[in-house]
């Protein structure tokens, strides 16, 4: 029973590896639709989702 469960796990994990490699899967990023064509001419006009003030304080 243990062996067959491990066989199933192994096959699933290998399938997931193949699928992830093939599709280029990665933890998702946000997709935005209807981006205005004016972005190229005026890059500052586009407000990215992640844009905002940062407050890094990580250094020693």
């Amino acid at each position, binding site marked *: 029973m*243990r*062996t067959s469960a*491990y*066989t199933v*796990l*192994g096959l699933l*994990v*290998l399938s*997931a*590896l*193949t699928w*992830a*490699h*093939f*599709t*280029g*899967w*990665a*933890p*998702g*990023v*946000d*997709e*935005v*639709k*209807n*981006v*205005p*064509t004016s*972005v*190229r001419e005026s*890059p*500052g006009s*586009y407000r*990215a*989702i*992640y*844009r905002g*003030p*940062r*407050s*890094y304080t*990580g*250094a*020693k």
Partner: protein
Amino acid sequence: VVVACSACGAVLDAQDADHRLIAREAEQRRVEPAIPLGARGRLKGEPFEVLGFLVREITVDGDPYAWGEYLLGGPEGQVRWLTEYQGHWILARATTGLPEVGRDRAARYLDIRFRHFQTAEAQVRYVIGEFPWQVRVGERAWVSDFVAPPHILSCERTADETTWSIGEHVDGERLWKAFGLPGSPPVRVGVGVVQPSPLAPHLSRVLWLLAGFAAAAVLVHLAFVLLSQQRTVYEGRFVYRPGAPGAAVVTDSFVLEGRRSNVVIETRTDVSNAWVYFNFALIDEAGGRALDFGREVSYYFGRNGDGAWQEGAPEDRAWLPAVPAGRYYLLIEPETVGAGNPVTYTVRVRRDVPRPLYFWFVLGILVVPPAVLGYRQLRFEHQRWLESDHPMLGRGGRGGDDDED
């Protein structure tokens, strides 16, 4: 031949014409054998009858450890020993040859290597039934056990003789069935000296499977490394001047080809004891869709009382999933606090790059079940060897830890 009466407790020499009395039960403390004398059954296809029963005992660090030994006799004069200790049963017979004991204290017999388990002086504490030799309470012998589960090789030495026997673990339930005994066998306590590990066969198979899966994972990864595009589709260099207007830039267009696959954005900077946050958007020229993501690049270093230290890195790599083919460009908007030094950064876009992290992640998942099984197997063996002269990690129940006979 000795006969010990279970009713009156008298131990008689059956070969003496007057049936000389050897011992009285008064010298013994009464013990009820789990398998009654006279019980008959078939073991390994051979019929046997329980002829005698004795209890032997060793003392380790002042603590007595006793076990039962049943003498079984067959119709053709076969003799077997059935021993029971804490619910663990072993069926033994005399060896037909002399085992070899090497310098490594291991014994070899019938092409099996037996590891030394324990040597102790055993004393007969109780005896009833019929025995083909004189046996009496108080009789002593040095007993050495060598194990190769489920087999055991035992050597018994007295001043007059040395005898070897080879035994095998027997399941108590099967024994009860074989002898047609009512009830159930004594409850097993701990791990028997040659009790087969229920985990060992699984562990062996799972380790083989792990080897197979790991090899398959390597092949899958290598196949994608060889067959993937891994093509640099864009590379550009920019300068970011904190505090100055116009930090946001767009790159030239680049084409992503092939099937839906990943895109890697590599950013290299010359930040030094500073950080820059990059707002990225990978924008599809045709569809007006954008993939938004942000990456922080921070790199700090210095020296303190513990010596040199550093934190972070001046470069970064972002993986965008499943991006369809098309013409794209990047919108990059760096930001930081204050008005620091200008930061020069390069951005490189690569298409269809196999991610090594996935291979290691898969390997990590595959290793977990064998590791858990291996740990449990180790615990099982630890329990087995706990009562030996060579405990694996120190002794629990018994004191002392030496290799002396």
